[in-house]
């Protein structure tokens, strides 16, 4: 292939029996929307860097995926976002860990790669850098989604129950095991 693009939107215990037709179509439609953004950039002679950033924006801005708007909750009921990007022509890279108010962390990773001498920034310092670079800052509540919040409550309840009984069982509980997935 002269050019190509591939995406993922998470992995785990994804079974057809647990999926409604509506939910399945929503995922397929969003995956198609996202990849076509990148495909059009590449087809028009754009860079793979732009294609990757803009494609990931679509998924970060969707509540369907565990990134950006659909991020899962921490134990403290906050959302902490991580991202990274790397270019293969120069082995340059940028990454960010644990930011709570940057709408599109993949763009912050790109800014770190291109506009700083560093590779990995984290926490509040990364947020300050994002502001300085003019990236969109949002209230932490922007990342709230009811389904993710309920998932956290279910995991907390199950772990509490498991601790009350047999901690080893938690390993075999699909919901708790699935909560380990990024």
């Amino acid at each position, binding site marked *: *292939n*002269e*050019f*190509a*693009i*591939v*995406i*993922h939107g*998470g*992995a*785990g*215990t*994804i*079974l057809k029996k647990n*999926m409604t037709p509506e939910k*399945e179509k929503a995922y*397929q439609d969003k*995956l*198609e929307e996202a*990849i076509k953004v990148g*495909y059009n950039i*590449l*087809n028009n*002679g754009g*860079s*793979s860097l732009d*294609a990757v950033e803009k494609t*990931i924006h679509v*998924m970060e801005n969707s509540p369907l995926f*565990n*990134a950006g708007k*659909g*991020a*899962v*909750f921490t134990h403290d009921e906050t959302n902490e*976002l*991580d*991202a*990274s*990007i*790397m*270019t*293969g022509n120069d*082995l340059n890279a940028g*990454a960010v*860990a*644990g930011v709570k108010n940057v709408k*599109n962390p*993949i763009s912050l*990773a790109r800014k770190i790669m291109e506009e700083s001498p560093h*590779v*990995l920034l*984290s926490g509040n310092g990364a947020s300050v850098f994002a502001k300085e670079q003019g990236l969109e800052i949002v209230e932490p509540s922007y*990342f709230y989604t009811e389904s993710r919040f309920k998932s*956290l409550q279910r995991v*907390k309840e199950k*772990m509490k129950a498991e601790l009350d009984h047999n901690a080893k069982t938690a390993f075999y509980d699909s919901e708790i095991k699935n*909560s380990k*997935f*990024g």
Partner: protein
Amino acid sequence: TVGCVALDKNGNITAGTSTGGMTNKRWNRIGDSPIIGAGTYANNATCGVSSTGWGEYFIRGMVAHDISALIDYKGSTLKEASKEVIQNKLTKLGGTGGIVAIDKFGNIVYEFNTAGMYRASMNDKGELDVKIYK
């Protein structure tokens, strides 16, 4: 976790990954996504990789770089390298998840050891592939 790998008309490969991490994480836990080489890697001489799954195992296995290294040092194809790292190394570690990758020839690979992975790809002919289940 979402991710994307692309090869452009100039032969440049880029890989990117973005995530909210794991539900119920504490103590400022950081997974593989921001660790270059663990979850994300790109090298025009070999391939680009983005990962999703149980991050701690991807860090311990340096999964994304390992796939590139097998192509670089051993001459493996992308398919062979991805299968070796995910189905043998990662699985033996006890880790679960998968990767998407593109090599310098534009070959596309999905490799995962879970029941499913949301994924899609397009090639230069505009052929679209969207899948969820194994």
